[in-house]
């Protein structure tokens, strides 16, 4: 930037103790990021240029990849699955969101709750349900006719189920940002309903739509749970990584596939960021929220649609729940808890379940502290622009890195014989670190948004009153953002319970996880116990979610008295 010419010596502001504390915090955070994401990704990159023995081979691995049709066909498969799943999910979620926001149909709160249920389950679970419904011994196998559920059809169905709530959350937010005055203007000007829909509704939420498209696309292309369970012989990039690494121990080729998977994810991420930045500026403070008016036919149609979708969601989950209770499908349909005796099967038994609880708890506690303090440092440090920019960039990076790729990168980095941090490999600690990093970006953005809503002059005032910044952080910033803090811990806990992708490479004999147990039991053909363990995750997540809601309300009532006028 061109510097204006000014007379006199430049003032070099002396750093106060607040500045020193905040900058030191940023440096520590930078160091953590270096170890937890930069170095591992570098290790992954360099591995893709090495042979099995670690010698540099240039692009030989990439050449071999593109010379092996079985491998590079997966690119096309992955893209096809992602495009089709995204199209279906967005169409369904948009109508559903429209019904929730713009109709007067009854039970809207219930429908909103039902739609979010898939978030509580690992992506493996819908796959298992579809096997029970449409598999070789499926309950309603006849629906499929000649087609097989094992392959693209099953994958797409599973992905739609699993990504539906993610799309819905973004779209309801986008549709909620409506300005009734625009609708009045459009009606007054004599525009038809269709024209109003296109020019006001669609254009008003277009960035939300774009954002939802890219989020779903990324989730699908990087997901590993659904294709693993129901993909059959149909290969996609995510399962290829798993097969190369776990099946063939070919780490170099795993790294190559990981890098290829990184490309669409990184691209979708950048496009989504672009869209979100545009969305923010849409709604002015003067906007009047749109209030839907009852319209019998429309409300009824919307109710019908939501009822069908809601029933499907609950039905799919219910099938897994039912299957987990059946003694021996399809020969002995009497109910028992036999499948819940995990200690009798492979996969780590009940210990896996408790490990998951422990891992999720640590992730929620440590992750919330790191993320919130980190976001505060980025937002509130005076000057030090270079440091803040770097940290901000690093905080956004995990979003673009698929979980499998992150897990693989961790193997290369932490399992390297020369790494003094190698003792972390296969411990609870590395699972927690990896999971926090995996979901860092989303919660970081939540924290930043919450912090931006706080008066930016709190720090100025406390400096003028000679109160150190960390005291104001504890006494004012954290209490004021308590709802966001609780949301962050909740999000981290749920995702830690359900995630498979990153941790599948990192667990050890004593740190097996429930979600990984689902995968391994399904792999071993113990599909009913896999469903049972999946349901345990769902029950736990749901219970924690309810407890969180009650807790939040209680805490809010006690500590947020000041919110009431």
């Amino acid at each position, binding site marked *: *930037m*061109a*510097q*204006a010419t*000014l*007379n*006199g*010596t*430049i*003032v*070099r*502001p*002396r*750093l*106060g*103790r*607040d*500045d020193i504390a905040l900058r030191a915090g940023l440096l520590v955070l930078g160091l953590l990021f270096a170890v937890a994401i930069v170095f591992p990704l570098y290790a992954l990159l360099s591995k893709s240029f090495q042979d099995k023995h670690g010698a540099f081979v240039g692009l030989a691995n990439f050449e071999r990849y593109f010379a092996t049709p079985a491998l590079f066909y997966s690119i096309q498969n992955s893209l096809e699955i992602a495009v089709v799943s995204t199209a279906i999910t967005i169409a369904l979620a948009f109508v559903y969101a429209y019904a929730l926001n713009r109709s007067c149909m009854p039970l809207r709160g219930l429908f909103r709750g039902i739609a979010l249920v898939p978030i509580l389950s690992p992506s493996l679970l819908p796959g298992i349900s579809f096997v029970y419904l449409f598999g070789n011994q499926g309950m309603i196998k006849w629906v499929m006719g000649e087609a097989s559920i094992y392959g693209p059809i099953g994958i797409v169905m599973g992905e739609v189920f699993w990504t539906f709530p993610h799309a819905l959350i973004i779209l309801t937010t986008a549709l909620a940002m409506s300005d009734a005055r625009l609708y009045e203007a459009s009606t007054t000007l004599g525009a038809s309903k269709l024209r109003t829909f296109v020019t006001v509704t669609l254009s008003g939420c277009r960035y939300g739509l774009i954002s939802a498209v890219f989020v779903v696309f990324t989730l699908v292309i990087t997901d590993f749970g659904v294709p693993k369970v129901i993909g059959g012989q149909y290969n996609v990039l995510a399962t290829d990584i798993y097969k190369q690494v776990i099946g063939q121990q070919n780490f170099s080729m795993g790294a190559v596939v990981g890098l290829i998977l990184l490309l669409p994810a990184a691209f979708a991420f950048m496009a989504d960021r672009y869209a979100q930045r545009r969305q923010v500026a849409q709604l002015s403070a003067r906007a009047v929220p749109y209030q839907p008016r009852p319209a019998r036919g429309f409300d009824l149609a919307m109710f019908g649609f939501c009822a069908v979708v809601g029933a499907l969601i609950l039905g799919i989950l219910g099938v897994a729940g039912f299957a987990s209770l059946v003694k021996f499908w399809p020969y002995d349909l009497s109910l028992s808890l036999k499948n819940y005796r995990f200690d009798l099967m492979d996969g780590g038994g009940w210990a896996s379940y408790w490990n998951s609880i422990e891992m999720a708890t640590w992730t929620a506690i440590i992750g919330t502290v790191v993320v919130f303090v980190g976001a505060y440092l980025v937002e509130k440090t005076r000057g030090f622009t270079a440091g803040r920019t770097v940290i901000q960039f690093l905080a956004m990076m995990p979003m673009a890195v698929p979980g499998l790729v992150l897990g693989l990168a961790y193997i290369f980095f932490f399992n390297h014989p020369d790494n003094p941090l190698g003792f972390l490999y296969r411990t609870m600690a590395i699972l927690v670190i990896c999971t926090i990093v995996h979901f860092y970006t989303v919660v970081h953005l939540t924290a930043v948004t919450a912090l931006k809503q706080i*008066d930016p*002059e*709190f720090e*100025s*005032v*406390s*400096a*003028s*009153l*000679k*109160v*150190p910044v960390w*005291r104001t952080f504890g*006494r*004012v910033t954290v*209490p*004021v953002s308590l709802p966001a803090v609780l949301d962050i811990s909740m999000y981290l806990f749920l995702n830690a319970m359900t995630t498979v992708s990153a941790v599948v490479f990192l667990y050890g004999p004593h740190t097996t996880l429930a979600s990984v147990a689902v995968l391994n039991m399904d792999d071993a053909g113990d599909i009913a116990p896999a469903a049972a363990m999946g349901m345990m995750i769902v029950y736990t997540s749901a219970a924690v979610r309810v407890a969180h809601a009650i807790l939040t309300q209680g805490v809010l009532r006690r*500590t*947020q*008295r*000041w*919110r*009431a*006028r």
Partner: protein
Amino acid sequence: MAEGDGARPYLRIEGVSKSFGSFVALRDISLAVEEGEFVCFLGPSGCGKTTLLRAIAGLDPQTTGTIIQDGRDVSALPPSARDFGIVFQSYALFPNLTVAANVAYGLENRRTPRAEVRRRVEELLDLVGLGDQGRKYPAQLSGGQQQRVALARALALSPGLLLLDEPLSALDARVRVHLRHEVRELQRRLGVTTIMVTHDQEEALTMADRIVVMNQGVIDQVGTPREIYAQPANRFVADFVGTMNFLAGTLTERGRVRVGRLELACPEAADGLGQGAAVTVCLRPEDVAVRGVDAATPNAAKARVASAEFLGPFLRAYLAVEGVDEVELTADFSVNAVRDLRIGEATELLVALPPDRLRVFAAG
């Protein structure tokens, strides 16, 4: 002015500039503020007044230049090492703390005994007239009350300098007028040196001992409210403070200006301007004379009321002056004069532009 009276000013700003990349927000600002003085930084948005205030506080330090407060060079010090209290437009009250806790916030940090803190908080709340509101939360108070809490908090550590950043502009007009008076009274009573940033000229005129008019990063004029209003230093100040007529003219000889076909006596006609120089003649609407004017009155002119607006205590008339074609002359006539002289639309009048009220600037 400060330099002249020999005493050491409380706050001295010397050659302060601030740039953001290639944009210069403040250019070579120098200013002295006396102890106990109430100074207003007045200017349109983007003129640099808030930037200067934040530099004085150390929140956004200047790029070059020196700031000396109470004999101490604070130019490079962080805000926490300076001595000031501050009130923002948003008040920045801590919403989760009670009014009393907000006021006590800085006191508690100094390990002051608890009873002492309580006593001081009560004293401060009484000072701002909120003695019985200590247990409430900020959200339960009105805007004006919140503003007073912010003031009490800023005064808690008895700072040597009180900085007010547009403290009244978020309030209703009526509350604002009331608080102007209260803030000024409080400041007088405590004798604390105060700098207030405002874009509201009325606020600056009624509250300040001295006004610093700023425009595009430089100081245009420093003076008492009377000086600023009656003798604006340049066209910008004349235009920004109050309402002003601007008439284009030419200097014919020393003390005389031709405007249209009129020739006006302007004893003040700016020195340093040669004959034939293009000038602007300024006159306040309320200075247009209409009573006791006859043909012999200096600068008398025939005029017709082209249109008029009733503004309560006075009538604002737009006059077509004979001999001046390009502009209408804005004149405020008291309701008394209007009644006595039967002024209404299309009335023909004889008005005078009193020579001692005319200000003349080089055109441009």
